[in-house]
């Protein structure tokens, strides 16, 4: 099976002014390659500032990368001007983190879900579009759909709002959806429901998902491949079970240790955590950019950037602890 989406050695630098004469490059994404097949989910896990959202924006060609290539369905769209991207805009969609601010509060559910159809001139009559809106609402289990059509976002719960966001993305029958922290603002008790729904829709419509999250536990259960990002670079990549069962990179290990599970013994012990705060991509450390936070940092780590290499079948890591052959 061929790849639907392919990012090759993508770099996304933002020039930020520092003082009057100086400016620095913030390396939000620094040499990342990923690929996605139809019907597959790639989870991108990392903390804030890791560049995961920027990477998603590049994948949707909302940003033109500083270097590297973006390929969709075999076509190179890295430099394609916006007016020639209409076909792509229809086939690639996004789901956003915040269901409270990503929906216009003055539009009804019907208007919100219908809007993409109007923008892409789909459905000649209002009745035709209404039919599609109802089908999309049924797809995301906002039923009976007729009851939701006239509602405004404030009348819905967080989970219902996120379903409206999903219906909006889904109504154009996209082949690729980038979901940026789609459940992080939803109650813990309802998160899995939304993720199951996305999984179900994926199977039904053969959609490729980029699932961006800081939560490695949900990534473990709702993805086919898992990449861990730290300061603009992928530091570990494999199948989710492999990453969670045999985490190699110290950062991945720390992310795993940071996941609390409901255990009354937790309160008697301190949680292992990564040292310090997430680092700023504006001023990345030399060598391996994780070294200031790494418990195993060696001299080499501050000097040389470790490449992402395959340590065992399908399991890649960028860390000097695992020298390649």
């Amino acid at each position, binding site marked *: 099976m061929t790849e639907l989406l392919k990012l090759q050695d993508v770099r996304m630098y933002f020039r930020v002014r520092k003082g009057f004469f100086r400016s620095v490059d913030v390396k939000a994404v620094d040499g990342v390659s990923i690929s996605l097949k139809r019907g597959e989910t790639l989870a991108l896990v990392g903390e804030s500032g890791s560049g995961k959202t920027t990477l998603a924006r590049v994948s949707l060609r909302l940003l033109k990368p500083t270097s590297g290539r973006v390929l969709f369905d075999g076509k190179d769209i890295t430099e394609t001007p916006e007016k020639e991207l209409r076909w792509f805009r229809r086939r690639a969609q996004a789901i956003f983190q915040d269901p409270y601010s990503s929906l216009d509060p003055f539009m009804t559910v019907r208007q919100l879900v219908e809007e993409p159809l109007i923008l892409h001139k789909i459905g000649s009559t209002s009745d035709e579009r209404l039919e599609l809106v109802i089908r999309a609402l049924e797809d995301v289990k906002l039923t009976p759909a007729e009851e939701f059509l006239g509602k405004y976002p404030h009348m819905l*719960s967080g989970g219902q709002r996120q379903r409206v966001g999903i219906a909006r993305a889904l109504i154009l029958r996209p082949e690729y959806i980038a979901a940026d922290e789609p459940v992080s603002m939803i109650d813990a008790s309802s998160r899995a429901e939304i993720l199951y729904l996305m999984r179900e829709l994926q199977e039904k419509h053969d959609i490729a998902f980029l699932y961006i999250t800081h939560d490695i536990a949900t990534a473990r259960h709702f993805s086919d491949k898992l990449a861990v990002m730290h300061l603009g670079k992928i530091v570990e990549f494999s199948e989710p079970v492999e990453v969670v069962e045999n985490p190699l990179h110290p950062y991945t290990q720390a992310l795993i240790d940071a996941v609390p599970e409901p255990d009354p013994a937790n309160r008697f012990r301190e949680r292992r*955590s990564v040292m310090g705060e997430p680092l700023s991509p504006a001023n990345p450390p030399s060598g391996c950019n994780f070294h200031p936070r790494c418990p195993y940092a060696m001299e080499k780590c501050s000097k040389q950037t470790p490449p992402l290499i395959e340590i065992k079948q399908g399991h890649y890591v960028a860390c000097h602890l695992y020298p390649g052959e």
Partner: protein
Amino acid sequence: MGQSNLLSIDGLRLYYRSARGVVRAVDNVSLTMRVGEVLGVVGESGCGKSSLANAIIKFLPPNTALYEGSVVIDGVDVVRLDEDEVRRRIRWRVVSMVFQGAMNILNPVIRVGFQVAEPLMVHAGASREEAFRAAREVMRRVGLSDDVFNRYPHELSGGMKQRIVIATALIMNPKLVILDEPTSALDVSIQAQIMNMLKRLKRELGLSMIFITHDIALASDISDRIAVMYAGEVVEVGSAEQVLLSPRHPYTQKLIAATPRLRGPKPDFVPGQPPDLTSPPSGCRFHPRCPYVMEKCRSSEPPSIAIEDGWSVKCWLYAGEAG
């Protein structure tokens, strides 16, 4: 650890007026807390957990429709005090609160050290020197280095700002600190660090806390006892061991099963939506979403049934086990 009650809540109700009718945000809640204990309050958004916190410190919005019952803290019933007395005698010095998102409302043009010290000067009439000394001390306690004192909020990371907010809550040595989702906007690694810091405060100062969250796994990280709220009511309360290891209420069971675990089965979820608190369901409020619903559940409200000492559940499934 002392055995005396620090807090006894009995029959507490807090209702709000709204365009759709009266919202029963806190409905007949009774709880007790001992000195040095951490009580986790867990439930979905809109279940009344933040309203419960507001009711404890009598922080009532203008559209309050009903506020009754009793909240006895340190021997004083807050419900019966007037606003002036609550401000003078209770808030900050007996009970302080870390509001949800408080780190985003630090004053951007005032040095953070001053913001930590301010309650001491305003509420206790401390001198500037005394207050600053106390502020430096408490900032050290929450893991901030001395040079942070003279910085402005924008110079601090999210984790440091949250520590500032917690330091402010501790400055007057309150007997109880209420923390409302103190880590929900933070990265996982920072969340772990803040939780470790809170555990240290609990151990070293014997600090009593109410920890409010929608995430029962996070609650387990610090709570000695856990109260599960649903639709304005406490549906199960017990020790962390009782509630987490052998949850009785179907809602508690669902909350625990909904936690995504790294190892083990895929997470479950609570189906359906939380009810509208202007017209909660008849009988047991959880019945429309309950997998074990019986005829009785639809028509009559379950009583609070004691399973063991200090462990009770509001569910008809256990009506035979009383005693």
